[in-house]
């Protein structure tokens, strides 16, 4: 019964969507602001990657809010799982196979390095703090797969995360002091295409990378159920 109603409603909805997306042409330039960003982005910000320029310069304040949302979600996540009891079956994990353990141990530093590369080159090539942070988190995921009993220091994660979040705001306030407005690009822009260019953008992206990396790692860490032994006792 519920299925029939659902399918009926969805059919009507699909028809409505069909009607409305008919009026959105595909493959045509639609926004003026996008054009503006493309034409003036390099000149304004000094970053080769326009997406990065938009994320961190034109709409840097949005990103700050977004990082806050991320932080709050992770906070809620940890709060919900704070008193979770450890299952007994977790005490005796089956050891990982040889290929997995060797491969992951071998890959871990390279994946980590790749993540760092991604967020350092955020203003030059595709990638940036968010992607790099995710890659770092997946590196830690590999690490945990190999050594499920390994304990990571939760405190240090939190410290890194908070410090990098604070650094973002400090840079913003420095922009307020040296420039005209919050998050203004007060450092010299340099030559577009060089690694050290685009003012504060690579700096912020590095902090975002560290922050996102440590947050996502924290989620995985918590969900793996390793840090709970202390709280149970």
């Amino acid at each position, binding site marked *: 019964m519920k299925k029939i109603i659902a399918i009926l409603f969805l059919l009507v909805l699909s028809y409505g969507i069909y009607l409305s997306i008919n009026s959105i042409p595909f493959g045509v330039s639609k*926004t003026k602001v996008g054009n503006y960003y493309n034409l003036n982005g390099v000149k304004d910000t000094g970053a080769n990657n326009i997406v990065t320029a938009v994320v961190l310069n034109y709409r840097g304040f949005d990103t700050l809010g977004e990082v806050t949302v991320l932080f709050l979600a992770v906070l809620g996540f940890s709060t919900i799982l704070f008193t979770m009891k450890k299952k007994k079956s977790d005490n005796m994990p089956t050891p990982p196979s040889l290929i997995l353990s060797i491969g992951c141990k071998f890959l871990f530093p390279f994946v980590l390095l790749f993540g760092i590369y991604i967020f350092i080159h955020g203003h030059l090539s595709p990638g940036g703090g968010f992607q790099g942070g995710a890659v770092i988190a997946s590196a830690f995921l590999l690490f945990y797969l190999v050594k499920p009993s390994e304990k990571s220091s939760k405190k240090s994660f939190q410290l890194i995360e908070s410090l990098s979040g604070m650094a973002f705001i400090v840079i913003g306030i420095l922009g307020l002091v040296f420039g005209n407005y919050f998050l203004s690009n007060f450092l010299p822009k340099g030559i577009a295409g060089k690694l050290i260019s685009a003012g504060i953008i690579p700096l912020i992206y590095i902090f975002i990378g560290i922050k996102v990396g440590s947050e996502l790692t924290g989620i995985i860490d918590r969900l793996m159920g390793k840090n709970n032994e202390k709280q149970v006792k």
Partner: protein
Amino acid sequence: MVYYIGAFGLIIIGLYVLMVKRNLIKMIIGISLINTGLNLFLISVGFIKLGTAPIFSKPGLNPKIMVDPLPQAMVLTAIVISVATLAMALALAIRLYEHHGTLDMGKIKDQKW
């Protein structure tokens, strides 16, 4: 055009899951499907035929035929937020499972009045 169909196909599948399935994890999967579909739709709206990525990776790129960078920037942050919120939803599901021993919404009577 086909991208639109793909995107809304995913969204409608996700909505169907949310409307019919009672398993909590399944519903979260549905939410993640909607997420993916929505991201795809936003990016495909910003696409321009024969356009290039909005990155000046080599000299001689024409900024006038670059695709729209704004939806890309927005979607970039949306993806990261979605993972955090999904993690939170999963945490809630895990707690509910611990408390009630089931993931079936219909059987969790505490939620009802």
